[in-house]
């Protein structure tokens, strides 16, 4: 049962030498063998390497104890978009299907320095483009709570792996909600740090001004622990910010009495499922009972966020994905000349959603259209950011549903890209504004029993506040006690 524990629960037992890192890793591998045939959270798992890391962790524990290594012996699974040396890095795309990474991302170096066992390549939407993990070139991941439903995306594999206890924690990436939305749909905690809080060195870039790496965990305390390990300035990422890293775990103590929490009226709209609304209303009531002051606020440019995102993110993606040209790495389909080689390689190597976004991005940046689309979108982005900065003058955090509905069925939205995009409405503004956000479980739909997530948004570098509120809420509820029954 070791695979069902949290980081804190395992660390305590590992520290007391009651259990070994090898036993923990084996427990996760056994769970993967039991359920991943159906869930498909993992694209690959290097068992030998994982167990070797576990052995090394046990030796370290015996020699020195865990001091200074807060994740010693903890198995952490990795979204297949983050570079791990000598492991595959496919981004769930055919164009990289044989690529082996020659280096570790900064976050991987940090996890290793903290003693974590870095293992597995988690399934995702191809190049992080999607909200359901149905865009993976290697088949979808299924929601552990209902195998006919999506786990969310693009970090669907990372979320499902934690929900199904196939790992103790995992890493994902979030560009428009790709950590928070799958966290909500899979009933786990997912955190998107402030832009610049965590290094992007070694993260395959989708949209460089929006991407952030963040953790999936089973509870808020574990998320705080993970963030402390992952955060920090990195000279190899010129967009990382030299902001000191606080002790996030210390911030979890104490009451939220007197904190002001904003409820944006534009988020309580039609299209919001009644059960989701009811769960979020109940959660807000709990926060009020804990002494928080609930304040109605307005984020007036909310309705433009999806449009702005699909101009800026696709434009940046079209530039970032230009490097996949079949020359230096990845799949190649040859041609009579380089241009033909590029066209054939990219045409056959990329999936339909990726091609759609590259085309849209190329169009909005093209001569004659740049001002009307890209420049205009960047200006509306300023307005969206200002909405949040103004709100944070009046409140300490903002609370919203994470998603408008619980998990939908596989295939339900995959034919209508626009419908899929609109389901990101609550998460997308956070990336545009560069602020931090997390999703914490706040209930279930009645039938079928599907998780519902509560989103907390914080000011830039305000992770302590949203973690504190999430922890206080979590202490009052026991949603975590429910586990999916995987047939």
């Amino acid at each position: 049962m070791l695979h069902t524990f949290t980081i804190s629960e395992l660390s305590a037992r590992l520290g007391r030498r009651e259990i070994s890192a090898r036993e923990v890793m084996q427990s996760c591998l056994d769970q993967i063998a039991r359920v991943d045939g159906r869930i498909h959270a993992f694209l690959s798992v290097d068992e030998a390497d994982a167990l070797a890391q576990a052995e090394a962790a046990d030796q370290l524990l015996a020699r020195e104890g865990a001091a200074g290594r807060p994740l010693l012996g903890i198995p952490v699974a990795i979204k297949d978009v983050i570079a791990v040396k000598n492991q595959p890095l496919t981004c769930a795309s055919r164009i990289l299907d044989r690529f082996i990474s020659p280096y570790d991302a900064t976050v991987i170096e940090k996890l290793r320095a903290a003693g974590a066992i870095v293992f597995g390549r988690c399934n995702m939407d191809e190049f992080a483009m999607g909200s359901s993990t149905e865009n993976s070139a290697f088949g979808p991941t299924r929601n552990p709570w209902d195998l006919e439903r999506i786990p969310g995306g693009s970090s669907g594999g990372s979320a499902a792996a934690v929900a199904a206890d196939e790992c103790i924690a995992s890493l994902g990436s979030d560009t428009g909600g790709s950590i928070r939305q799958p966290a909500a749909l899979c009933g786990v905690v997912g955190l998107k740090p402030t832009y610049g809080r965590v290094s992007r060195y070694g993260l395959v870039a989708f949209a460089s001004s929006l991407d952030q790496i963040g953790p999936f965990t089973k509870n808020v305390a574990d998320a705080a622990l993970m963030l402390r390990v992952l955060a920090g300035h990195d000279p190899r990422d010129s967009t990382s910010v030299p902001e000191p890293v606080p002790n996030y775990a210390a911030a979890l103590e104490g009451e939220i009495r007197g904190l002001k929490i904003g409820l944006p009226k534009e988020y309580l709209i039609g299209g919001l499922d009644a059960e989701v609304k009811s769960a979020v209303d109940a959660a807000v009531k709990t926060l009020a009972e804990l002494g928080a002051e609930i304040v109605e606020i307005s984020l007036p440019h909310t309705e433009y966020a999806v449009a702005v995102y699909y101009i800026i993110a696709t434009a940046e993606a079209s530039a970032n994905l230009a490097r996949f040209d079949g020359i230096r790495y990845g799949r190649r389909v040859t041609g009579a000349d380089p241009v033909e080689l590029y066209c054939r390689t990219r045409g056959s190597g990329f999936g339909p959603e990726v091609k759609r976004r590259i085309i849209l991005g190329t169009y909005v940046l093209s001569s004659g259209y740049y001002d009307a689309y890209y420049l205009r979108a960047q200006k509306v982005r300023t307005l969206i950011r200002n909405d949040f900065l103004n709100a944070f003058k009046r409140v300490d955090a903002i609370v919203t549903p994470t998603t408008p509905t619980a998990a939908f069925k596989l295939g339900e939205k995959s034919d209508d890209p626009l419908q899929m995009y609109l389901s990101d409405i609550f998460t997308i503004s956070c990336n545009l504004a560069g602020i931090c956000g997390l999703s914490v479980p706040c209930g279930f739909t009645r039938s079928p029993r599907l998780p519902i997530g509560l989103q907390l948004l914080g000011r830039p570098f305000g992770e302590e506040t949203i973690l504190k509120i999430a922890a206080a809420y979590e202490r009052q509820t026991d949603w975590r006690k429910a586990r999916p029954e995987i047939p």
Partner: protein
Amino acid sequence: MAAAEFDIQYIARLARLELTPDEEKKMSAQLGRILDYIEKLRTVDVSEIEPTAHAVPLVNVTRPDVVCPSLPREEALRNAPVQVNGLFMVPKIVE
């Protein structure tokens, strides 16, 4: 109107993406609908508003212009589709 002017073959060429005729047709329609949706941005008053390229207030992050170790050649070639004599092999570029 944006959708009508959308020349998918031209854009695909710019993006170096080969599309099948079927893909061209399907994608054109899908992108047309998305572009129609994006039109709502035209109604926003953005006069006097500065664009945000980057959400964080950092400017001109530099490091000293000094040669530092980088990926060894063998590592850099490891994933090469076609390599010859320690070089990436490509089709003829210049006639």
